[in-house]
């Protein structure tokens, strides 16, 4: 049944069609407990150890709303410039699935806690695009199923399945955009930039881990095309399984080229769920459902309405930190950065990291240099996000301080950082373990200096004769002899001392 999709050249796609996007982002909140019960909300753990009668959907158990999750939902709504509902309810979304213990999801239907907002998104070239937000609502996550047997370990062909409900009931906020139209060829980039901006915002607010790789931030991308000049949206597909920022852009782009090929061929797009395949950047159709879904929503009778008072909302508004883009503007001014320097900082995702490194005592130029250059290269080499590198801003600041005090050379500092990234411990532990101390014992150094001078008497003479810059060759020899562990400045001083030129 699988057919290799025909694709249209991207340039032609955007020449003939206008893409319309709709992005649904699910965010797992980083509350201590689940949405409706007191079980720990933490990633991992032995299966079925973070469970209780409530999140296992046992007969008789009742939900009680986590107040902190509601606060996070309101704060997210406020940060997205949404209106906050004065009165809203939870609703039951009824459908059967084994990973959902009650066979309904407690969610919000036509009364979301936050609605009608927007998020300003900065594209790579600095252009700002406003994405309108339809709603942000509260709901709960499902458990996880493991499919056993069959060739691939995936759902198809499995012999049986195993269910773990540790994740069941984890608080989720679903953030839904209004249709994003008029973006033309930049649509895929806008999609990525939007999810990036949302991630940065949620991270700044400290409401979620926002780890796409762990599923605490998940994006479903709705894509449709309309022919140029048309005024009705085309049929959309919803692509799931988009597990990285880069994938968001790829998935949108792929669906655009696929839709266009189908439409140009006189075909029609089937409204369906598709799955993004990380390996080749394509999407594949999900199983077709026999019957249209009818979720039979109705107000959750076990939970009473939420009616946030104005005072409460105002209090929460006061807790919203400076938004990442406002912060960037301020940082540019404070640090006196050119647009280009700021863009490097933003594009590498280093703003918060540099700021935190500065907060930990480093000079901003040093901090910026480390994150944007060496660490950014390391992230690329390790195929991870800068923020996900196994080094903290405080550790970077420590390395910078050690360089500043002469205890590390730049070369050694990079080795220390590599050690930290490889999980060998904090910088001091790495220095200790790898023996990366700068040799500061002058007697040992002097021996090396004397040896180098003796080996190159002509150079020693030149220095003695006043050609101080010739000392570089001796410094190089000493550094070589000490395997780079000496402080070059000190070596230079000793050389000059030794030949009597100091």
């Amino acid at each position, binding site marked *: 049944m699988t057919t290799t999709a025909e694709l249209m050249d991207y340039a032609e796609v955007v020449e003939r069609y206008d893409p319309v996007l709709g992005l649904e982002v699910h965010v797992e909140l980083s509350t201590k407990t689940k949405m409706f019960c007191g079980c720990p909300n933490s990633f991992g753990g032995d299966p079925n150890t973070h469970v209780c*009668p409530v999140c*296992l*959907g*046992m*007969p*008789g*158990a*009742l*939900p*009680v*709303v986590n107040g902190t999750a509601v606060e996070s939902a309101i704060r997210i709504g406020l940060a997205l410039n949404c209106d906050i509902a004065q009165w809203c309810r939870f609703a*039951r979304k*009824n459908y*059967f699935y*084994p990973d959902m*213990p*009650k*066979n*309904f999801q407690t969610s919000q239907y036509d009364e979301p806690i936050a609605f009608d907002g927007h998020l300003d998104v900065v594209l790579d070239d600095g252009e700002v695009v406003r994405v309108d937000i339809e709603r942000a609502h509260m709901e709960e996550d499902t458990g996880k199923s493991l499919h056993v047997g069959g060739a691939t370990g995936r759902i198809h062909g499995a*012999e049986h*399945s195993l*269910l773990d409900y540790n994740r069941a009931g984890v608080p989720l906020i679903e953030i839904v955009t209004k249709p994003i139209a008029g973006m033309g060829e930049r649509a895929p980039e806008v999609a990525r930039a939007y999810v990036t901006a949302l991630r940065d915002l949620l991270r700044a607010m400290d409401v979620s881990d926002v780890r796409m790789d762990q599923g605490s931030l998940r994006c479903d991308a709705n894509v449709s095309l309309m022919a140029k000049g048309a005024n009705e949206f085309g049929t959309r597909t919803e692509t799931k399984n988009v597990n990285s920022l880069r994938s968001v852009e790829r998935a949108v782009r792929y669906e655009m080229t696929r839709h266009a090929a189908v439409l140009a061929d006189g075909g029609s797009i089937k409204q369906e769920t598709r799955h993004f395949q990380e390996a080749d950047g394509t999407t594949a159709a999900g199983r077709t459902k026999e019957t249209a879904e*009818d979720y*039979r*929503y*109705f107000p959750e*009778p*076990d*939970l*009473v309405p939420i009616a946030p008072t104005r005072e409460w909302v105002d209090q929460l508004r006061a807790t919203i930190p400076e938004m990442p883009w406002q912060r960037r503007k301020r940082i540019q001014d404070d640090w006196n950065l050119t647009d280009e320097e700021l863009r490097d900082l933003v594009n590498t995702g280093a703003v918060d990291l540099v700021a935190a490194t500065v907060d930990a005592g480093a000079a901003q130029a040093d901090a910026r240099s480390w994150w944007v250059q060496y660490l950014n290269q390391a992230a690329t080499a390790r195929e991870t996000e800068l923020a996900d590198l196994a080094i903290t801003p405080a550790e970077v600041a420590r390395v910078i301080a050690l360089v500043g005090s002469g205890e590390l050379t730049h070369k050694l500092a990079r080795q220390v950082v590599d050690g930290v990234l490889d999980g060998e411990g904090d910088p001091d532990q790495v220095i200790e373990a790898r023996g990366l101390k700068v040799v500061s014992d002058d007697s040992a150094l002097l021996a090396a200096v004397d040896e180098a001078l003796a080996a190159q008497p002509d150079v020693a003479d030149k220095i003695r004769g006043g050609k101080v810059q010739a000392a570089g060759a001796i410094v190089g020899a000493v550094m070589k002899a000490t395997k780079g562990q000496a402080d070059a400045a000190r070596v230079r001083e000793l050389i000059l001392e030794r030949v009597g030129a100091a």
Partner: protein
Amino acid sequence: MSDLTRLTAAELAEKIHTGEVTAAEVTQAHLDRIAAVDGDVHAFLHVDAEGALETARAVDADLAAGRAPVSPLAGVPLALKDVLTTRGVPTTCGSKTLEGWLPPYDATVTRRLREAGVPVLGKTNMDEFAMGSSTENSAYGPTHNPWDLDRIPGGSGGGSSASLAAYEAPLAIGTDTGGSIRQPAAVTATVGVKPTYGGVSRYGLVAFSSSLDQAGPCGRTVLDAALLHEVIAGHDPMDATSIDAPVPALADAAREGARGDLNGVKVGVVRELSGDGYQGGVLRSFDAAVAQLKELGAEVVEVSCPHFGYALSAYYLIAPSECSSNLARFDAMRYGLRVADDGSHSAEEVMSLTREEGFGAEVKRRVMLGTYALSSGYYDAYYGSAQKVRTLITRDFAAAFEQVDVLVSPTTPVTPFKLGEKVDDPLAMYLNDICSIPANLAGNAAMSVPSGLSDEDGLPVGLQIMAPALADDRLYRVGAAYEAARGPVLDKLGELEAAK
């Protein structure tokens, strides 16, 4: 038969707390009674003799050590409806789908009973998942009315009320979604109270219709019900719909009422809860009760609640809708029955086959009815409209309680019918709850107290008293006054005894 089983809970408590008898003796007497008569009555699905005696002995040890009783009912045993979870003790809800399930946790009501030193004799029979008015929908066979073993004991909590009428327990817990405490109380000549919604925690009450379900006390006297009500009531942080307010002094209200003075109390007779469809003997019993209330000094007026006539229809949309969702969890994945897991069926097929096998006809009927009423395209006409009727009924109550302190009506339109008589006619069966449903829809408190026997068939009739939300104490004052004035309803249990 031991005399101990004929005593009220209040009397038993006094004898236990003064050391005249031990709690273990009282519990054993009731276990013996159960052993003797439950083969005929079938009030119990599970008897937990060891658990009950253990609690009783702990109470005795406490008293022997000179400590004060942990509650006014410490040591007085009780029958618990099988819809409330009991840790490690079977909880079936009268359904095959939960056969053999041992809950890993106690309902809040169960916990409070344990903390109050109340020995739980066992779990009582009920219509499957509390859906029914006759206990004939139990997967484990019907309960028989001790007044006439060929007749229904009411439902869904027929087991709890029958256990009281058969002197198998002095106290029982029921749950009331549309009348499942009050209607069985009426047809067994016992007392049953549906507290204000939110007054007693629903945590661990296996949900039928979440916005209507309420657990409540059952006893043979109004005072006994009040004492039990005080033990189980009060705010519970595990139930978001639980009311965080002090419980009114209910036993005090019952004691005050028993002095027989209702001067200054205004009683409203609900015009819409009588007339066509009501048995003559029921109406005559009701009229006599109203006359008695007047004699006690109450001012009686007729009030109109014009939307009560729509209550039954609204109920039969709301309750099935909520139940279709609440019962979705019985899917053979995590607990309970699983059939056809032979490797040839998918999880989805096993779910469908198990639900088909595990649910009885009435449950399936209501699940489908509710699924229909919530479907897109029908929601507004059915579920949405029913929720509006609910608003109108609540307003009717509010307007009536502007004029009067309590409302009265018959509890049921007819006396208990024969087992099997209405089992194939769901609509006729549903009519049993016509008087009790309005209080569930509005969430206020209501009681059924025996009003004697119908003059045409000699079977029990109940008087329903309704009070505003959070004014449960009014039920006890008026109910106890009436009970004291009326005197004991003829006890026919001697006949059951003779048949042994």
